[in-house]
């Protein structure tokens, strides 16, 4: 336990007084980022819950240089800052070791910000893109995103008399990111702080573009009590609905394999957005959701076994 005590002693770089919902995990992830490293960090934050709640004029929760520009451009904004840093370094204007981080949710990453992310990775900027994935456009009121899982009841895929939630599967952002052959990509969950912090540290220590996709259960949007945020993340991993793994040099390494993989139903039970999936008349949906989870999990297992 000494590890956390040592970390706790060092003081925070993300101040309280922010307006995130009680039980929101976004700040848990942000604190993990800022607490695990001594590097100077410059952040570009996409529009979203985190941004509006942490930088509400005249207040800021950030004790690091921070910029919010728009929804879809966290990656290109940080790319510009990182390019300027190279100039400062070359001209001797700074001797600091500064790391650059783009923060965005799934909306700003999988969807509207995908192009900027792809461009910045391809251009090999030295930065970490940290996606805080809460599987919907939570900030505008829980609309579907391409990160929303199959079947999810969102405000633009509402369950009604004829419709039964989101009809498409989740976008596999990790595979898209992987296609850029960046040196480090990982998926993590906020419940496993040690794994999350290790990944953040490794990403920051890696030269070139790195990416981490962190599951952030949203109590408001997903429909569960605020004290369950960490537990909902845990069960996502225990059901393999959210595998935690790394891709290094093109090879998959699964960081956690449940001893006994729980049915995805166990995760669904905890959340209002999947309540309809558990009704007898929607058995087919539940079956399909389980298939999708299994398919992805087995694909990861196969890749890992094959050293791919």
């Amino acid at each position: 336990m000494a590890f956390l005590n040592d970390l706790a002693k060092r003081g925070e770089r993300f101040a309280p007084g922010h307006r995130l919902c009680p039980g929101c995990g976004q700040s848990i992830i942000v604190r993990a980022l800022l607490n695990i490293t001594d590097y100077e960090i410059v952040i570009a934050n996409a529009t979203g819950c985190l941004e509006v709640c942490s930088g509400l004029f005249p207040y800021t929760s950030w004790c690091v240089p921070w910029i919010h520009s728009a929804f879809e451009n966290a990656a290109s904004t940080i790319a510009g800052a990182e390019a300027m840093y190279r100039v400062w370094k070359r001209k001797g204007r700074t001797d600091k070791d500064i790391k650059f981080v783009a923060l965005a949710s799934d909306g700003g990453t999988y969807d509207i910000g995908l192009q900027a992310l792809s461009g910045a990775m391809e251009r090999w900027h030295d930065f970490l893109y940290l996606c805080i994935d809460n599987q919907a456009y939570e900030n505008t009121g829980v609309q579907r995103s391409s990160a929303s899982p199959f079947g999810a009841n969102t405000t633009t895929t509402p369950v009604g008399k004829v419709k039964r939630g989101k009809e498409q599967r989740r976008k596999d952002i990790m595979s898209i990111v992987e296609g850029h052959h960046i040196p480090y990509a990982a998926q993590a969950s906020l419940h496993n702080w040690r794994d999350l912090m290790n990944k953040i540290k490794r990403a920051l220590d890696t030269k070139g573009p790195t990416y981490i996709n962190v599951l952030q259960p949203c109590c408001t949007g997903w429909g569960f009590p605020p004290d369950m945020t960490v537990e909902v993340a845990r069960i996502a991993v225990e059901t393999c609905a959210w595998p935690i793994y790394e891709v290094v040099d093109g090879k998959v390494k699964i960081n956690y394999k449940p001893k006994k993989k729980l049915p995805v139903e166990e995760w669904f039970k905890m959340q209002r957005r999947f309540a309809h999936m558990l009704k007898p008349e929607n058995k087919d949906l539940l079956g399909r959701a389980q298939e999708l989870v299994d398919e992805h999990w087995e694909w990861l297992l196969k890749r890992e076994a094959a050293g791919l």
Partner: protein
Amino acid sequence: MGKKVALDGNAAAAHAIRQINPDVIAAFPITPSTQIPMTVSSFIADGLMDTELVTVESEHSAMSACVGAAAAGGRVMTATAAQGLALMWEILYIASSMRLPMVTVIAARALNAPLNIHGDHSDVMGARDAGWIQLFCEDAQEVYDSIIQAIKISENKDVLTPVMVVMDGFNTTHSVEVWEMEEDERVKEFIGEYEPKYPLLDVSRKITYGAWAPPSEYFEHKVNQLTGIIRARPVVKKVGEEFGKVFGRSYDCFELYKLDDAEYAIVMMGSAAGTAKDVVDVLREDGVKAGLLKIRMFRPFPAEEIKEALGNVKVVATLDRVIPAGAYGSPLFNEVRSALYDAPKRPMVIDYIYGLGGRDIQPKHFKEVYENLQRIAKTGKIEKMLDFINIRGKWGK
């Protein structure tokens, strides 16, 4: 001493950028501005400048990276046109609202649809209220000179506002002209060093940029932002004069051509002003009191000075190179007419649109405009408030 060169407007821009040697350029190619990042890339490849060139995947990212780089702290430039400027639109406001100095060279071009890669001012006029200073250029020399001045204007501590330097697509970007290029060292000396006010990279200060402002705060921010562009008015003039002292070519917010005793005046911007001047000369020989007001600085709009300059004219025609669908008048018309409303003699003003999508405007067209102005002065009657120059088919009743 400078040297005479024969190069087009894009090359003039590229050379100005080479001499400025900004810290970061983020750019995406688009006709007719493409030669700017291309030429700059070749300068970098040959070691003639050491700018960090961020070859972004879109203009949206170009402006976003410029914002990131400028906030980080340093000199930033880009170039674009048409759809590219339209795609930047969202972030243009952010650059100016964060009061980030930077210079964007615009090769003004028509907007789709239909697709057209040629010159007009639709793109720039779409961005006229984005909080950027806008300087329109007539030729390659003005492009070169204005880019150098724009750095100084933008970084002025009272201004701290981004600047667009506008040249007409193809008319200027691709026309080879003879112009004077100054020595690298003297340009460098003229622009001086830039000390950013709130650099993100100064990690000891931990600045927050871009917090959101609720209704209780937003309005004050917008008014505060206005101060930069308003203060640019005297600064543009001052920098233009300083430039004249050093390099022998002075600039103001606008150029008055034979306007002192003029009774009929055209007000316009951009490359076609050169043709207009020739027509004024011809008309003057015939004893027609024609004059021209070429506006260089459209934003901030120099209304007071224009009121003064046009106050004694009988009839004014504004020539816009944009079609403002559904508006009562074209942008220049509205600004000029509004400025003249309080003039003691309040000249009549009519609205012309010309040159859309690269359509030619020739001396005979300017002549027709001046003839119409004389007719209006004589009869006191305006038949058409708005007309289009050099289109097929008749407009209006």
